[in-house]
């Protein structure tokens, strides 16, 4: 279905609620009669998934720069560890998915969320160091201060770290990284690459 040339702005009517379902960038008025745009962009109509019980076409607004992404439960993030304490590490969320965020969000990784197995044997200081770049998943919106992050999956954990000599280290196992210059081995919760 075409009809994606019409430019709309917030508050413009997209159609009647009896004919359309509100998709991205659209909402239904409180009286359930009208679908309005909530963003600036192109009015776009897509067919509902064939297995959906509701067979109304979906009207959405696309093409505009939406606001910068914010972390939500389930998002994969890339964060820089800022501080490592006995029971948790704090980290600045710098990328959401593969996109960078404009301004940092604070996240914390609690001791119990580092590994999926042998949780009681995990040592915070053998998992992360300040400055490490980690890939993590957002567990929840957390508390007032930080999002709760987890690295308890094979593909999550440290993806880049510097050795004491100041050079990027190479992962040699699930728990170790090695400095290519000094040969020194440091402990980390290392992320597995690829699939």
């Amino acid at each position, binding site marked *: 279905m075409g009809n994606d040339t019409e430019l709309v702005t917030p508050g413009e009517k997209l159609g009647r609620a009896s004919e359309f379902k509100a998709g991205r960038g659209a909402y239904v008025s409180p009286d359930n009669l009208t679908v309005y745009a909530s963003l600036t962009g192109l009015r776009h109509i897509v067919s509902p998934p064939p297995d959906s019980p509701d067979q109304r076409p979906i009207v959405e607004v696309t093409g505009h720069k939406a606001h910068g992404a914010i972390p939500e439960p389930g998002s994969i993030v890339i964060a*820089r*560890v*800022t*501080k490592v304490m006995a029971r948790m590490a704090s980290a600045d969320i710098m990328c959401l998915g593969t996109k960078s965020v404009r301004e940092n969000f604070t996240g914390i990784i609690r001791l119990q969320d580092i590994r999926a197995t042998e949780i009681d044997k995990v040592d915070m200081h053998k998992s992360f160091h*300040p*400055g490490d770049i980690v890939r993590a998943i957002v567990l929840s919106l957390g508390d007032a201060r930080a999002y709760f992050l987890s690295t308890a999956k094979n593909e999550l954990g440290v993806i880049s770290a510097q050795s004491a000599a*100041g050079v990027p280290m190479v992962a040699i196992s699930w728990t170790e990284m090695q400095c290519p210059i000094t040969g020194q081995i440091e402990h980390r919760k290392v992320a597995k690459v690829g699939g």
Partner: protein
Amino acid sequence: MEIDRLDGRTPNQLRPLACTHNVLNRAHGSASWCQGDTKVLAAVYGPKAGTKKNENPEKACIEVIWKPKTGQSGKTEREYEMILKRTLQSICILTLNPNTTTSVIIQVVNDDGALLPCAINAACAALVDAGIPLKHLAVAICCCLAESGYVILDPSKLEEQKMKAFVYLVFPNSVLSNLPEGQLTVQGEPMEHGIITSVTQGAMPVDDYLHCLERGRAATAKMSAFLRKSLQPKLPID
């Protein structure tokens, strides 16, 4: 043509230098530094952990607080704080104590010219006294330019006001090394010729500035010898 200096000094002559360290009991490190009647007291606290504000996971943080002799801090003090902070950052090995803050407090005791250079020298001595890891020391000097392009060093307040321009310069101290000479040059110049900080006031021809650089470098060699001597552990008979 020569310019007679009020206190009878030769153009290249510095005022008497005096440096005492460990002058304050409660600070982790402290020093007082005098150049003639200009006197500055510097205190260092830190490195302290957990003062969240400017913390950086990769680098130690340095904060500078400038206390004028009298009155409130204004724009001049803010500017001096910024210059001092960035100068000290460049000589400290910041990667050794990440997530910490080191505070440097400067108290002006008396200002009789060359105040900022004097404060930089004091801060540097106080950092050594506190045992903060440093790459090298910094030595600061003020050069004054007369109308004719004539340069005098380490001016008093009166001389500063009379001259058409002045230049504050900070250089690394000369390095004592066992390595062959060639190892310590950068772009054909010895390391201690590189400028850490330069602040100028008043218009001057570019060549006069370059001339100030030469004279400043020559003078800081003497000062760095003094600084080194004054920082050596005192013998008990002192």
